[in-house]
């Protein structure tokens, strides 16, 4: 039904020689699109591109190498489960480290990491603090609790990232063309719908925030198609049941209190100014790099790995020579194939049916 409407809307933009390219910037959208079988049901002339919306995937290889260095020293590493099987350039992983006796604790919540540190006070614990704004706020609440409780053996290896600079980098890249964005719904609950006006105004691309359900996604795409057809580079909040105009003030206050923006390396996009956060100097005791005298160095991925190009929307996963041939969810070469929000993992699981049945 909505697909019919989408087809109707697409007729307004027919006559374009190239397909309309919409980028979704949320790993959960990537997975939802795959799981719901939406991609192959979209009208001809509308291409949905996955962008840098998977926090594990955009994390540079060097970060994991630093985490493994700490684990080798006997530091307890608390991590979201997603990072466990991500390979380094030479094929090591936190899972392999754990098998060798490394103290690795998988967490659903950053509070689990704090509990691990409190339960084992004689060991230093480091939480692998990766994530976009949605995750950053919960991690900071956890730090607040650690500080209030006087926990002395807990710190963060920080690789927080901001979504907006990545969207700008994709548009500035020149190697891929994007006509509009399906914006990340839960990041948007923190930063607010108004955050995307800078993209719309500066780059002339419509931005629509939509939820994860099939109707949400299709309605969001329909809105983008309509805005492109009318030549209107505007922001639309199609997830107003959760996303407000200015976002979550508590989360924003926590971010402003604990963090300051800084340049960080993104897999596939290079070093982007003001695209990440670091702990303010006042909270250095919680910064694992300072506490443990390590430095996260940028490091290239495994030879042949094209995750960077997939993340930046320059190619679809099947175009990677390693896709399904040497790189699979069971034996991944890069993060996109093994992360629960990775584009390659989504394509491998949900988009290969037609290819294999052809």
């Amino acid at each position, binding site marked *: 039904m909505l697909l019919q409407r989408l087809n109707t809307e697409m007729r307004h933009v027919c006559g374009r020689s190239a397909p309309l390219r919409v980028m979704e910037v949320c790993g959960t959208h990537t997975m939802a699109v795959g799981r719901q079988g939406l991609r192959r049901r979209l009208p001809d002339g509308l291409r949905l591109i996955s962008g840098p919306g998977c926090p594990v995937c955009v994390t540079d290889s060097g970060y994991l190498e630093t985490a493994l260095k700490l684990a080798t020293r006997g530091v307890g590493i608390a991590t979201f489960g997603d990072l466990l099987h991500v390979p380094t350039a030479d094929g090591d992983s936190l899972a392999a480290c754990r098998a060798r006796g490394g103290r690795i604790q998988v967490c659903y919540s950053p509070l689990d990491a704090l509990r691990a540190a409190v339960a084992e006070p004689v060991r230093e614990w480091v939480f692998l603090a990766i994530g976009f704004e949605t995750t950053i706020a919960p991690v900071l*609440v956890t730090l607040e609790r650690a500080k209030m409780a006087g926990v002395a053996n807990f710190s963060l290896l920080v690789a927080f990232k901001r979504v907006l600079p990545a969207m700008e980098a994709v548009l500035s890249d020149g190697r891929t063309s994007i006509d509009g964005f399906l914006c990340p719904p839960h990041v948007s609950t923190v930063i607010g719908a108004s955050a995307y006006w800078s993209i719309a105004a500066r780059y002339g691309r419509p931005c629509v925030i939509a939820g994860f359900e099939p*109707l949400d996604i299709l309605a969001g795409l329909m809105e983008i198609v309509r805005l492109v057809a009318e030549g209107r580079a505007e922001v639309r909040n199609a997830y107003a049941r*959760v996303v407000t105009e200015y976002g979550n003030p508590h989360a924003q206050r926590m971010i402003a209190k604990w963090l300051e923006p800084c340049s960080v390396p993104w897999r596939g996009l290079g070093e982007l100014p003001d695209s990440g956060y670091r702990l303010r100097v006042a909270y250095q005791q919680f910064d694992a790099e300072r506490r443990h005298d390590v430095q996260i160095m940028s490091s290239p991925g495994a030879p042949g790995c094209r995750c960077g190009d997939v993340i930046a929307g320059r190619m679809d996963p099947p175009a990677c020579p390693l896709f399904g041939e040497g790189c699979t969810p069971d034996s991944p070469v890069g993060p996109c194939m093994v992360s629960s929000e990775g584009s390659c993992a989504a394509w491998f699981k949900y988009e290969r049916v037609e290819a294999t049945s052809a």
Partner: protein
Amino acid sequence: MRLVEISGDGRAVAESDGLRLEVDVSLIECPQPGEYVIVHAGFAIERLDTEEAEAQLAFFEDLARASRGGEATAAS
């Protein structure tokens, strides 16, 4: 998820489809039992605005009605 119990220290219990989960509500202004929230990594990150949710549902229902009307016209 729906909040069912609120402690005073930023902790709460949320429920969904019979599953009960401890969630942190420090990022929500004045959380109330019975409210629906979005939960991420064990934290309620925003409450659900039921009026907006109902408006969205009405929008989808209107689309469905319009589509069925179009199908009926096409069939006749």
